[in-house]
């Protein structure tokens, strides 16, 4: 998320940052986990603005990691858009071919913009999923950290 740090804090930008943070958590979560969390909310009816569909996004890198862009290869992506009866429109995008997941992300995005559901989605869906995602990342990071070479210890051992 560092790539898109908001430089100003208008209410609109803050709302977008909040939606993007939620989308990142949802994209990193399992479909079944999102569905189970959403079910506890009893979400309202919605219509599909964009039927969930599969497609491709060309992934880009940078020459040398920091130079001009180049095309590395494509990735499968699913997307959907929904509208709540109250008018809020949500978008769902995720890597992979899971159209249900794209639809659930779109629904969460719409609910996050709704006065009635925003707080509940944040606390009942996004926050617990974020805890799970962070725990999984922390476990990976801890296992990785154990493979860090400690040259200092080596030198001390010889001295």
């Amino acid at each position: 998320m560092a790539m898109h740090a908001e430089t100003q804090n208008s209410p609109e930008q803050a709302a977008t940052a909040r939606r993007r943070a939620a989308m990142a958590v949802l994209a990193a979560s399992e479909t079944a986990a999102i569905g189970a969390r959403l079910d506890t909310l009893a979400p309202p009816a919605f219509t599909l603005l964009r039927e969930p569909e599969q497609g491709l996004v060309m992934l880009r890198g940078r020459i040398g990691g920091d130079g001009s862009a180049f095309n590395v290869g494509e990735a499968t992506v699913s997307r959907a858009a929904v509208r709540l009866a109250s008018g809020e429109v949500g978008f769902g995008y995720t890597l992979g071919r899971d159209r249900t997941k794209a639809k659930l992300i779109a629904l969460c995005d719409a609910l996050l913009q709704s006065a009635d559901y925003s707080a509940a989605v944040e606390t009942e869906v996004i926050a617990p999923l974020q805890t799970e995602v962070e725990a999984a990342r922390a476990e990976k990071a801890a296992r990785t950290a154990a493979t860090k070479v400690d040259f200092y210890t080596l030198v001390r051992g010889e001295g």
Partner: protein
Amino acid sequence: MYVAVKGGERAIDNAHRLLADARRGNRDVPELTLDQISEQLALGVDRVMSEGSLYDRELAALAIKQARGDLIEAIFLVRAFRATLPRFGSSEPVDTGAMAVRRRISSTFKDIPGGQILGPTFDYTHRLLDPQLAESGDPAEPATAEASDAPTPRVTDILRQDGLIEESPVAEDDSAVGDLTREPLNFPAGRDLRLQNLARADEGFLLALGYSTQRGYGRNHPFAGEIRFGDVEVFFEAEDAGFAVPLGSVALTECQMVNQFKGSATEAPRFTRGYGLAFGQSERKAMSMALVDRALRAQELGEDVKAPAQDEEFVLSHSDNVQATGFVEHLKLPHYVDFQSELGLLRKLRAEFNQDQPELREAAE
């Protein structure tokens, strides 16, 4: 001729039935699941994603199963699949500097900020077959240690601060990125197109070319400045949403080669660079790619172009294993008519030869 075609159809159907049976193998042995392939043959899946040029673990696993483990056939299947889906657009360029690192080593600096992190690697294994793996049983849980929040800057960024290494080329506008899946490759190709070609190129081909540069065919004095593998967030500027949406993260391997320095009358000498980037944990591929990327910059850097790895047209035209296998394997297809005409010509030439030189014919007999 019609008889042969009809007979062929039945034979083809039955050959495919036999193929399906051979793919399944002994039915007393449990069938492989895609999860098993994705989890336990993960590096094969990574290679199929890289060279199939499609990031989707499940599809790559399916392709490996369908191809009976023939990775080039699997890559072919994945390439064919991607033609069935519409393209939504291009991602924002990924920031490998912000990678959640799972492995990161440098052979140029011992003490790099963030440290040398070995991760899951074959390095330092003794390459002795492990008979225990022939039995089932789970390995020990991995060790853990307190993870540090210290950033892991790219080694090239550190060298750059002191002006010791050349800057990466920076285009004014990222919208004009070449795409060889949309336009045919022309020569000379820009570095963006060369890197796209190399990213999907056959690992074995790049490995051999990279090796050839080390053995003196276009030597460029490489150091593995840094190799890193880990997860990178992908963002996509979604027109409907009106902002860059996160799509999730992909695993990538990046290699920064630091190569022989170059200067001029007006510029102080600096190290030059070669770059490799591949899907998944594909270290050999990323390293080979970086060596070949650097070799292909020979002309730009004022070096003699005389080795195969420096020959852009040679490298880029023969790097794609789907194209290569298509052309090599098409030799299996019926060439009966072509061959009949060759045969007719040969018989005519031999008859003429024998008429002109009857004494040679007698000697030969």
